[in-house]
């Protein structure tokens, strides 16, 4: 059970890192104009 004292704070830190990563993706505009990207792979060039 003692390992929980390490794992729970670790999970909190991980969650905060993921939140920051989401923010990075949002501000890079990665959630905008997502329709055309699926088609791009079907294009010849």
């Amino acid at each position: 059970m003692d390992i929980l004292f390490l794992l729970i704070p670790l999970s909190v830190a991980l969650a905060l890192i993921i939140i920051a990563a989401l923010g990075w993706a949002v501000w890079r505009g990665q959630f905008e104009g997502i329709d055309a990207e699926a088609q791009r792979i079907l294009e010849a060039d």
Partner: protein
Amino acid sequence: MQTALDEPAEWEGFSRPLAGRDGWRECYLAIEGMHCAACALTVEHALALLPGVDNVRVNGASATALIAWSPRLTRPSAWLAALAGAGYGALPAGDLLLAAPRRQAQRVLLWRWLVAGFCMMQVMMYAVPAYVASPGDITPDIAGLLGWASWVLTLPVVLFSCWPFFSTALRDLRHGRIGMDVPVALGIAIAFGASTVATFDPTGPLGHEVWYDSVTMFVFFLLSGRLLEQRLRDRTAGSLEALMRRLPQTIERALPGGGFERVPVRRLVAGDLVRVLPGEIFPADGVVTDGESQVDEALLTGESMPVPRGKGQLVVAGSHNLSGMLAMRVERIGEQTRYAQIVTLMEQASMDKPRLARIADRIATPFLFAVVAAAAAAAAWWWSTDPSHAVGVAIAVLIVTCPCALSLATPAATLAAAGALARRGVLVRRLQALEACASIDTVVFDKTGTLTLAPMALLATRCRPGIEPARALALAGALAQHSLHPASRAIAAAAGKVDCIATGLTELAGHGLRATVSQDGGRHARQLRLGAASFCDAPARRHTALGLEVHLADEAGWLAVFEFDEALRPDAQAAIEALRAQGLSVQLLSGDRSVSVQRLARRVGIEAAWGDCSPEGKLRHVSRAQRQGRRVAMVGDGVNDGPSLARADVSIAMGQAVPLAQAKADFVVLGGQLGAIPLLLSQARRTRRVVRENLLWAAAYNTVCVPLAVIGAMPPWLAGLGMALSSLLVVANSARLARLPAEH
């Protein structure tokens, strides 16, 4: 028109210098005719192949493209031509340069939502042990650790994700009023505050109960609703702005040596002499120097009747010239007048709350006061027996009663419907009109330019003996070039460049044009009339033309007739069949001759058709139908439809309609797709059904849940779930409207 875009003076209006690349500019284009994601790539290719165009980014969802271009290598007309070659229409969209704050807001809200969602999941994990474990399974130090971890992850939700609720609530309180966010913010603050106290002091007066999971979940669902609402709203705002995008307006300015040239309005300066054709908009405030006309100033003054304007009188920018050609001297120019008009139009459309939404707004304030009072009363009553339970009851009451669902019910549905229609090429000018649209039972069409295509081909010319067809055409062209009527456009196009000058021109809407035409320096001046057969004393003939006829006459009587082939819009027949399948009565009203109107009506399957209608006749017809209890939708395109468009319960203008018709219409159909009209009407009926479902559901939910929360039968987590799900259900139900029904 395209040359106006190539004017450097116009570039400032729709593009801006690109940072980091000297001499390059950046500009948004609104693309017409994009239907799918694959279209985005086609557009991208078409633009990227052009020299001097770079960094092409096409957004399929909003049908816009962002490009960088160099004025040294290319001109705007070249892109438009390239896109036209690929089968797409385009307009520069300078307004999108101003939309950066909106994109900023979208991103912030998306991030708030992601933070709330992610933290909610993690906090739930920390909360699960407390729910499933039997007493004594969890040691106090592990329980404390879980509580501490939950607190750390709830902090960003409360401080960052909830910020909009807190700031709105604070603003409302500071202004001494109560809004929807006040109980929400109170509930969140109390729940988080009580939980914090319980976490760090489990033996304190508030007990050891924590509500982190309830708070994060509530915030996540609440933000989900806001996010969906924002998406719907932005999509509609985008389509309203699209309506304001036109090619730069041009106007005929007098040259110093006589004659006129078309210049962009932006290049006018005070003192310029310009002439304004019937159907055009006055480009500036000024004084009439020549001519007589009727002017529609409804947009600016609210005066619905056209006012006569003649020499020496003032005309204001943004009003429409209806009947005659006017020469005017420009006195005041600038963005102010035009700008003010656009702002009015935009505000009018967006401030226009549907009737049901207004009712919901009115009852919201007393309701919210009652909610806060009930929460306080319930908490006070429970405090004496069980203080830890009192906090829970107060939170539950505050959260469960949030009338989000009620206030979302109508706007969410109408916005979703309007967004779907905009993607199909129907712009909703007045949201309220969707409500009226649902009860329409009669659809009245105009003929020329609405059911038939506007550019017409000249088939044949027949003349009075003694006059050459080419000569007659040249005379007709001199008149026709001053009018925006589709038939005049066709004649002007067929005549090409003419050597005669028409002066003192008057347009009698529904009849034709009258002017003095002179050539050779004015020695052979003659009174000419161009228009309907009755207007030109045309001889009765056994042979009737297949299409539209335009007659020319002088003082001596009938001179010539021009026959045009009138092509039916390709989807006219299907659209009318679809309307009849919906059980609507379809009628045709036209200023054209009865014979050709009847023939066209038979061709497309319309039973009730009337020809030879003047604008007053059309208006009379529409009001008579209304007196018989019919709810009339009018579909038109021209100057002579203006009055009937204004009179009809619902007015629909075709996209290439003259500005007057567009300004009066509730809906604008872009790209001339008649097939969109049956869709619009069925969409309106679906919208009405969804709004009723939403309101019924929201009212039922509050009636059931509020008493439960007050008597303490509802824990905060259930209150949060119930409230959020009720709003989500309303938004999800409305979102069904974002998908149009299958086409008939």
